[in-house]
C-alpha cells in the first residue's frame, strides 16, 4: 500500500560561518492513513525538527540538505514553495506546544480560523466565520458563538489548545502533526485534549504524528512509535511491542527512568538514571551516539555507527546488539 506520506533519507543541516552539521540524519518514515505515530526522544533528538520539515518551517540557518518528502506520491521538497504550501495548509496541519505563542494575539480566534478557510477554500468572510463557529463547537468549546469573537488571552490554556486544534482542522487535513500538544497543560486538561485528538481521528480518519517526550502518552495513543536520539531514529515498531520489549538499550533506559505511581510499592527503588547528557549535534561521536552513556557498549559501538537492523516484522533498532550476527 502506498503510504500517505513518505520521508526518505531526510537530512536537516545547520550552517555557521565555520562549520556545518546535521541535526537530523538518515531519517525515513512512512505514515499510513488513519494511524497515530509517536516520535519520542529527549531535547535535541530532532523530533521537533522532523515536524517542522514536514511543514516547510525549518528555522534559518537550518535547511533540508538531503532527502525527499512525498505526499500521496507527490514530491514536496522539489515541487517549489507555492505547490508545497498548497499541499501543506490543506492536507497537513500542525499544532504546537504553547498555544499562547502559536496563536496570534491581535486577531480573534474566529479570524484565525477564517484565514485558513478563506485562503485554502475560497470562502467569503461571513461563511468562514460561520464555519469557524462549527469548528469551535466540534472541538468542545462552550458558547462558540461568543468565543469566536474573543482573543487568545481571554480564554484558558486548555481552551486555547482546543482553538489551535480548530485552526489546524479548518481544512480537514489528512495529516495532523502535534508537537507536544499537552506538555504545557495540567494533567486533567491533558487527558481532555488527548481524548479530543482521538475523537477527531475516529471522525475524520486523520493521520496523527504526535511528537512527545512522555512515554505515558505513547502508551495511551500510539499505534507505532519512533524513538529518536541525537538526530537519528534508533528504534521503530508497533507501540505496544516496543514498550513491552524494547530492543535498543536507550529505549529500555528511557522507560526505566520514569518514576511511576505504583500503589503496591512499599519501598523506594532507586530510579535507573542514564549517566551524562545527549551529545550536541555539532559534536556527535564517530560510533553510536549513545555509546558513551550505554551500559552495554563495547569497542565496536564506539568505532562504527550501527545501521537500523530489522529485528522483527515491522520493527527495527539501530544497535549492534540487535544485529543478526550478534544474536547468533
Amino acid at each position, binding site marked *: 500500500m502506498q503510504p500517505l506520506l513518505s520521508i526518505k533519507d531526510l537530512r536537516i543541516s545547520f550552517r555557521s560561518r565555520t562549520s556545518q552539521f546535521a541535526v537530523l540524519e538518515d531519517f525515513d518514515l512512512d505514515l499510513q492513513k488513519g494511524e497515530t505515530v509517536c516520535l519520542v526522544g*529527549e*531535547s535535541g533528538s530532532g523530533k521537533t525538527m522532523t515536524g517542522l520539515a514536514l511543514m516547510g518551517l525549518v528555522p534559518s540557518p537550518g535547511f533540508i540538505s538531503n532527502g525527499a518528502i512525498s505526499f500521496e506520491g507527490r514530491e514536496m521538497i522539489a515541487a517549489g514553495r507555492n505547490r508545497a504550501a498548497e499541499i501543506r495548509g490543506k492536507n497537513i496541519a500542525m499544532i504546537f506546544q504553547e498555544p499562547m505563542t502559536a496563536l496570534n494575539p491581535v486577531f480573534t480566534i474566529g479570524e484565525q480560523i477564517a484565514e485558513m478557510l478563506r485562503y485554502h477554500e475560497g470562502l467569503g468572510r461571513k461563511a468562514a466565520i460561520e464555519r469557524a463557529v462549527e469548528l469551535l463547537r466540534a472541538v468542545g468549546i462552550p458558547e462558540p458563538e461568543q468565543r469566536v469573537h474573543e482573543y487568545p488571552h481571554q480564554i*484558558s*490554556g*486548555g*481552551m486555547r489548545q482546543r482553538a489551535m486544534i480548530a485552526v489546524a482542522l479548518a481544512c480537514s487535513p489528512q495529516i495532523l502533526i502535534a508537537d507536544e500538544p499537552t506538555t504545557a497543560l*495540567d*494533567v*486533567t*486538561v*491533558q*487527558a*481532555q485534549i*488527548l*481524548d479530543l485528538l482521538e475523537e477527531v481521528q475516529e471522525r475524520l480518519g486523520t493521520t496523527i504524528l504526535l511528537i512527545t*517526550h*512522555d*512515554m*505515558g*502518552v505513547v*502508551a*495511551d495513543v500510539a499505534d507505532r512509535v519512533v524513538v529518536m536520539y541525537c538526530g537519528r531514529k534508533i528504534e521503530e515498531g508497533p507501540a505496544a511491542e516496543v514498550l513491552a520489549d524494547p530492543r535498543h538499550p536507550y529505549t529500555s*533506559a*528511557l522507560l526505566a*527512568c*520514569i*518514576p*511511576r*505511581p*505504583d*500503589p*503496591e*510499592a*512499599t519501598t*523506594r527503588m*532507586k*530510579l*535507573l*538514571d*542514564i*549517566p551524562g*547528557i*545527549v551529545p550536541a549535534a555539532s559534536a556527535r561521536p564517530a560510533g553510536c551516539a549513545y555509546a558513551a552513556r550505554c551500559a552495554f557498549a563495547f569497542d565496536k559501538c564506539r568505532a562504527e555507527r550501527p545501521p537500523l537492523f530489522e529485528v522483527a516484522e515491522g520493527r527495527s533498532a539501530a544497535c549492534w546488539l540487535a544485529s543478526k550476527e550478534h544474536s547468533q
Partner: protein
Amino acid sequence: MSKEAEKNLLEVKDLRVSFPSRHGAGAKRMVHAVNDVSFSLRRGRSLGIVGESGSGKTTTALAVMRLVEPSGGSILFDGVDLTQAKGESLRRMRPRFQMIFQDPFSSLEPRKRAGAIVREPMDLLGIGTEAERRQRVDELFARVGLRDDQKLNFPHQFSGGQRQRIGIARAIATRPDLVVCDEPVSALDVAIQAQILNLLVEVQEEFRLSYLFISHDLGVVHYVCDEIAVMYLGKIVEHNDRQSLFRQPLHPYTWALLSAVPGRGAAGRQNRIRLKGDPPSPFDLPKGCSFAQRCPFAQDECRNVRPELRAVSGGRRVACHRVNDEGIGPHHEFGEAVSRVEA
C-alpha cells in the same frame, strides 16, 4: 524513633495568602490563593503538595519561605512562628530553611561563577570563616556530582541538569533542616530528571533533610514523598501517606487526577473519571466545595456547604461530603462504572 524525630519541624496552621489584583477592566479584587491550609512535617520526612496550576501549591511554598506575606495563620518552624519573625530574628532562622527552584535557567545569577553562587548563602548569612566556606563549596561540588574546575564556570556553561545540581548545592550549603523544593525537575528531560531525583533522595538521607516538595507530577511525588497533600483552588482536599493515597484515593479529585496520568494504556483510559472544564477562577470562590462544579458526584450540599478537611478511618484526611467516615465515597461504590459516570 527518637523523640526529636517525632517532633514536628514545621507546623502550618490556617495559612491564608491573598493578593490584590486588577482583573480586566474591573475594580480591584482579592485573589485568594491559599485558604486555611494546615499541615505539619516531621524531621527527615518529605511532604508532597500536588495540584494543578492555580491550586496554590507554589504560593504555599513561597509563604513558608517568607517570600510572600501570608494574610493569616501561623507557620511554626521548630516552635518559632515565622509569620511574626522580622529583620534580624528572621535572618538568624534563614540558614535552617532553604529553597530549590523550578527553573534552573532563571534561578542562578548569570554573571556569577558557580562556586560563588553556591557560597553566597554562607556569605550573606555570615556562616563560617572564609576558609571554611571555601572548603564547604569544595565538598558540596563533589557531593552533587560537579567537577572542582567547574566552580569557575558561569551558569550558561552548564546543562539544565548541572544547573539544578548547583541549585541543590546552594540550598544545602547552610546545612538547613528544611528544604522547600518547587517543581525541581519539571524543566528537565526524563533521563536527567532521574539523575536529579536520585540526588535529592540521597542528600535527604545523608543530611536528614525535611522536604516540602511541590510538584504537579504524581510519579515524581510518589518517588520522593512519604506523605502527600492534594490541593485544589487554594485548599487541601486530601492529605494522606503515599501508599494509601495511591492505593485508595479518597477525594474524587484525587481519583480523577490519578486516573488522568497517561500511561495506563487503552483499558486504563476507559476506566477513569473524565473531568470537564477548567478549575474555576480564584477570584470568585464558590460558596460550597470548590470542586463541586467539575465533580461528577456533587449534590446540593456540596454546592452550598464548604467541606472541611476531616479525619476518616485510618487517620486519613479528606475534605468531601460524599466520603463517609469509613473512607468510602461514591467513586468507590460505583467502582467499575467510573467510565460511565461522565456526562
